[in-house]
């Protein structure tokens, strides 16, 4: 094999690899969202102001209000271990399945520190799959989404 060919092949591979790595890093930087529990977010509110965040917690009892006429869901997401909570507004979407007081919820959206409010773009409740918690002779509510511990 000619030397020149080998050079071409190596150069092409490096270009391809470099391009892919660059793409991945650029996209990660531009889309990555920090992950919080309500307590951590409240404690670190100023640094997360106007940023995209993810919050994982429980639907605070009695806090949710569903304005069916305008498709606006508002509620507070509270911490699993403390009283801290963050307000959430979720607009122009259906209220998801399994949305009940005290249930696990996962929210993505932009945080506004001055109002302690997240404008949610995505909202997930405890899901479908029953694989949660192998040892679940106890009810399964506490076992899902325990990723932040």
């Amino acid at each position: 094999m000619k030397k020149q060919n080998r050079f071409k092949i190596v150069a092409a591979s490096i270009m391809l690899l470099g391009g892919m790595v660059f793409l991945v890093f650029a996209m990660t930087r531009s889309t990555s969202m920090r992950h919080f529990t309500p307590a951590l977010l409240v404690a670190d509110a100023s640094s997360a102001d106007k940023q995209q965040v993810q919050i994982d917690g429980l639907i605070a009892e009695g806090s949710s209000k569903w304005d069916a006429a305008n498709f606006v869901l508002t509620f507070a997401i509270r911490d699993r271990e403390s009283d801290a909570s963050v307000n959430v507004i979720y607009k122009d979407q259906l209220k998801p399945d399994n949305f009940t007081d005290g249930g696990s919820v996962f929210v993505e959206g932009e945080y506004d520190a001055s109002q302690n409010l997240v404008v949610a773009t995505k909202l997930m409740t405890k899901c479908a799959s029953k694989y949660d918690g192998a040892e679940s002779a106890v009810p399964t509510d506490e076992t899902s989404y325990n990723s932040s511990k």
Partner: protein
Amino acid sequence: MTAEIGQAAIFLSVLSCLWAIAFLSVGLRTRNPHAIQSGRNAVIATFILISISTGALIYGFLTDDFSMRYVEEVSSAAQPLLYKITALWGAMSGSLLFWLWLLTVGGAIVVWQNYQRNKQMPDTLADYSLIPIAIVQLFFTILVTGLIEGIYNPLARFPNGQVAVDGQGMNTLLQTPLMAIHPPTLYIGWISLTIPFAFAVGALASGRIGSGWILRSRRWMLFSWIILTIGITLGGNWAYQELGWGGYWAWDPVENASFMPWLLGTAYLHSVMIQEKRNMLKLWNILLITLAFQFTLLGTFITRSGIITSVHAFGGSGIGGYFLSFILASTAGVIGLIIYRWNRLKSANRLESLLSRESAFLLNNWLLVGLTLIILWGTLWPIISEAINGEKSSVPEAFFNKVVIIPGLLLLFLTGAGPIISWKKITANNFRRMFLFPLIIGLIGGALTWGFLALIGYTFPLYSVLCSFAAVFVFAAIFAEFYRGAKLRAKRQETSFVNGLNLLIQRNKRRYGGYIIHIGIVILYIGIMGSKGYFLLESKSMTLGESMEVGKYKLTMIDSFEKEYANYLRSGVIFDVAKNGKRIGTMEPALHAYYGAKPDEEPTKEPAIHHVGMNDLYVALANVPRNIKTGGVVNVQAYYNPLIGIVWIGVAVMVLGGIVAIAEKSDRSRDAR
């Protein structure tokens, strides 16, 4: 009593796995046929033992034995028969047992195939490969013994003779026929990947690193690929029909976990052809199949360990650590064998040119492995980011959608370029003869797409234009291949063109089956482009008599209904659907309230889907108020999903191509060493 027998069988199969590993290793080293036979028998014994435990668990479901913990967890007396059986994989312990059982079926088939083959041609490759199979079986057997913290024995009873009055029952969302077959399909796909991996390890251990192991495991690999393709699609289809968010793929960690082994398996199916034709990439193929196998375990690790937040909401269960340890240990074992066999793994040939079929294959491999790593990166980003700066972050669906486009389009182009580019080095003649026509047609296709999209208001849809160009190019390239080949055959055999085409495929099922898969891929891409790129969504709160518009369609809510079924209450509304003012049918989206549902389970959404050619109208409801007849407000989401029907057709064509390719029995005649 049956449960106790089942438990005993699991413990005994720990012994039979150890027996198989020990007797096969010693027998193969000392060339002792009796010891080898004993090892094979032990593999069969494991299969019988695990079948007994699985049978005992199913018996528990059928007899509603709520003294058994697992039965209580996932079944209930009122659960329909089908879902009592599928409850076997309804939660973790049972699905591990089911996984193990499938693996023992695989082991038994390998023994049987080897027995058939040995009658003609004795050889030890399959016996060597039984050792890694038994090791993986041992791992899963230990997991289900109940001795491991975090997983109880699926046949265990409640302590102190407690008996629950009724079971908790399976989650109602999973009680659909699609969900009854989706998980086992994926499992079968993953587990059949274990066999080619075992053959690779067997090849390393025995020192026979030619193409023998690849040919012997070729049909296993294709089988796995076909089943995984079906399984992944069933999952997407289920999500589309049941979850009510109008889509079929969301880059959820669990979806990714099923997709990554598929990508690696696809890469492997291509790279082995280079080894067969040019005797290159021996080491790469072994690494690739090892990686594909490890990713099936990694998927389980990701989804079961609770380290990643997912819609599937898996809890932390301690099992992740065992999977990770096994992944690391088995990878270390393979690397050890590779070092041991290093001298035999060198390639005889090298790449000669950047523009050749070899490098097209290589680029395909780089892209598929690259995509896998990108998806892995995105999936594990919560862990990676925490390790880097102590703060957990994650990337949304948009990250994946954006980052896969360019490698995805390159792959699409290769789908057509790979089959027509010449080996070793492209020539001017090859380019003129094979490339010119498809490229021109492709450019025309791209331009037409651009024109069409511009007409309906999209000014510069770059990716769609590139996708259409590549898709049309691939179509033209592959059809030209079929046409040329069929015409040549017809001429030689002096028969009709259709007969020629038939002969062409019959004589080389693997190659032309592969081309059919490529056509399926193109169709799939067009479907994804349409449905992901151009869907419309409208939300509205409405009362009876009101209407809403999505695209050219007008939906008028004319009535509501309520109907009782065996295990749920169906309530919904009826829409009159009109296109451009002309009535084309009705849609009946609904909610199902299951009678056995737990208090925290709300009614499930049952969207209505109306097919208009390849496009779908899709309507989901958030609620159906009690007072709907007297002015109650219903919250409606309506989607227009263009070309989504093509997604399913594309996959069907891929599966068809896979079935054609797997029909070729080339593995006996050409058993190169």
